[in-house]
């Protein structure tokens, strides 16, 4: 998927995007105002047909970034260069409400919680058909036909279109949300934690559905999630966020097997691996402290107070997001002064090493290697 898209211009080029919120402090804002930099200087290319993962802990700005791209927020600085069907490029960040209208149906979103994102007083026909009505794309019988088709596409029976959301289970409601996102034939879909609220057996159904739909319709996804396992399963490229900045960006395989930022390494090492025999082999990188308050960010590298490899330079100089040198042709960016010299450990190293696995097998005495 990603290979064919490499030489063409990206579908969406995010340049130096920042989002700053001003909030009141103290009771009813009487203690003055303060600013929170939720997203700072993000550069990101989204190529046509790929799935880009945005991963990070809560409060790192991944949802805000997604909403800026949707233009649910107006970013305080930066550009959102979107390539139209005819090849011309438009900066979405500068457009006003009316000018944005045609793009609202090309960039769509799937929400996290299928229960709160569907209006309980509307039938499926109304929920899924509303984007068509709002954009004046279809009405009457045509509307009904297109809703039926969208429902069929996500694996729901079209006969159900006169029912209300309460009649459906969590997985089915998420399918309704997906149908609503896809009914306008979008080019870019932003899925914000789209499977996080779902149970294991339902989650795999929805993940497979998202993959099938991408293949059928040639969709581009930005997949926002805190779940690294889901990200690795679904995404072609991954951007790791910490405190509003992208700290590392690389193709999925590369990022998981050879991370180049200490934060990525810590995230990967914190992941529980579904194999009890690997317990003893696992080296966990302990992270000191907690994510700093985004309103009061540390100087220098924002990760330095928690970084196990920190040196003097880290608390004064802020590193830039730069390509790592020795990866060959793979574009791999890292926001760390020592990205080239640090020897960081990925996930594949832990699970693939044949000798360590053999040792683990001996101790546990199981006969089958899965």
């Amino acid at each position, binding site marked *: 998927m990603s290979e064919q898209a490499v030489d063409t211009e990206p579908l969406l080029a995010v340049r130096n995007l920042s989002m700053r919120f001003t909030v009141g402090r103290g009771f009813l804002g009487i203690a003055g105002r303060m600013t929170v930099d939720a997203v700072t200087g993000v550069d990101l290319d989204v190529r046509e047909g790929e799935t880009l993962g945005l991963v990070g*802990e*809560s409060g790192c700005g991944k949802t805000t970034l997604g909403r800026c791209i949707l233009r649910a927020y107006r970013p305080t600085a930066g550009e959102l260069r979107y390539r139209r069907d005819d090849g011309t490029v438009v900066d979405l960040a500068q457009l006003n409400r009316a000018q944005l209208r045609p793009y609202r149906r090309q960039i769509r979103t799937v929400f996290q919680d299928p229960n709160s994102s569907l209006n309980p007083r509307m039938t499926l026909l109304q929920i899924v058909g509303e984007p068509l009505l709002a954009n004046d794309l279809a009405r009457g019988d045509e509307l009904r036909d297109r809703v039926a088709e969208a429902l069929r596409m996500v694996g729901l029976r079209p006969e159900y279109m006169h029912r209300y959301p309460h009649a459906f*289970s969590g*997985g*089915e409601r998420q399918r309704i949300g997906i149908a609503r996102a896809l009914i306008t034939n979008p080019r870019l879909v932003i899925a914000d934690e789209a499977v996080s609220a779902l*149970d*294991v*057996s*339902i*989650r*795999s*159904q929805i*993940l*497979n559905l998202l*993959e099938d739909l991408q293949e059928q319709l040639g969709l581009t996804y930005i997949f926002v999630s*805190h779940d*690294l*396992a*889901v990200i*690795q*399963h*679904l995404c072609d490229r991954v951007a790791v966020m910490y405190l509003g900045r992208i700290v590392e960006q690389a193709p999925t395989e590369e990022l*998981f097997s050879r991370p180049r930022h200490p934060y990525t390494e*810590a*995230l*990967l*090492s*914190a*992941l*529980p*691996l*579904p*194999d*009890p*025999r*690997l*317990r*003893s082999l*696992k*080296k*966990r990188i*302990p*992270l000191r402290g*907690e994510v700093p308050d985004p309103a009061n960010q540390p100087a220098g590298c924002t990760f330095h107070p928690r970084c196990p490899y920190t040196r003097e330079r880290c608390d004064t100089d802020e590193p830039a997001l730069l390509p790592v040198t020795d990866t060959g042709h793979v574009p791999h960016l890292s926001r760390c002064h020592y990205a080239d010299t640090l020897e960081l450990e990925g*996930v*594949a190293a832990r*699970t*693939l090493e044949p000798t360590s696995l053999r040792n683990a097998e001996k*101790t*546990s*005495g*199981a006969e*089958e290697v*899965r």
Partner: protein
Amino acid sequence: MNHMSDTATTQPAAARSQPPLLEVRGLRTRFELPEGVVHAVDGVDLTVYPGQTLCVVGESGCGKSVTARSILQLVDPPGRITAGTVNFHVGPDHPLLTARHPSRRDQAAVRSARDGVLDLAALDPKGTAIRAIRGKEIAMIFQEPMVSLSPVHTIGHQIVEHIRTHEDVSKKEARDRAIEALRQVGIPQPERRVDSYTFHLSGGMRQRAMIALALACRPKLLIADEPTTALDVTTQAQILDLLQELREQYGMAMLFITHDLGVVAEIADAVAVMYLGLVVEECGVDELFHDPRHPYTKALLESVPVVGPRAKRRLATITGMVPHPYDRPTGCPFHTRCRDTMPGTCDTTVPPVLTTTEGRRRTVRCLLYESAEALHRGTVREEVSR
């Protein structure tokens, strides 16, 4: 992390010789609602050995939390425990067995206790006996600490109150113990934090405070109901490490409820897989991951995206969804979604518990296995294997 693997291999052997700490047999809890009766827990069997971690896994609505609450008689009406025993080893000399209880139910239950084993399900849910167990012998931590801790009392106040409920100590002493408890769960500057409110703390710190509260009276068993689900991965890793450390330090057992198989692989000694109010498989953690026997366990393991070299493969799915609680299937509850379902058998008979004790103990509820011996070998009925 090496000390963890040592205990994982040595503990079960030591644990087997000891009598179980907690033995749940045939537990049934149901909710009688105007729309119908929900059999949330429908004959659950669980065994927890001293010092061991038993993980209970299952999807939402399978009855994991209700099981945990039933053990401590914490089910709110219209929920009611209708059958089963919850045998808890309090020890033969426990003051609870000689104390005077105002409730007749408590008196009867205490009288019928043998060898220091008390049936918690027979106690009065509002009696003095179960209140002496809760928090003191069996403590519980919950998913959302913000909901289960009081927002209008300081952390210290809550821990002090908890200690003084169960033990006859002075306020000063209890406060010192509260500070010590906070230090042990890794809260920095416990002397200051003891006077802070829950909203002063971050999610991870709140969960640590919750753990400090639960462990302040050194319980023999800790029931943890999805304690890390609301946390980030890095915080989750810290909390799991902390729980493991404290468990070893105090030699307490843990009943850990989760839906995350990664967490299970990380901390469990034994695992019970639940589906629609039944434990369908209970076995050691290695057996579960590398040699599962029940079709539901197998399907569950295949449908989880795994970090590692096999991440990109297409996920297997379990067809359909968990049936509606009012509308439980007859026979085996999983037969409507099972790949190997046998028409005429699975939809009529509730599978009995098969137990094999060769190697490590394993119990399975599945009609594919004709006998305990077939279960041990892993051979299924002929009509299916063909």
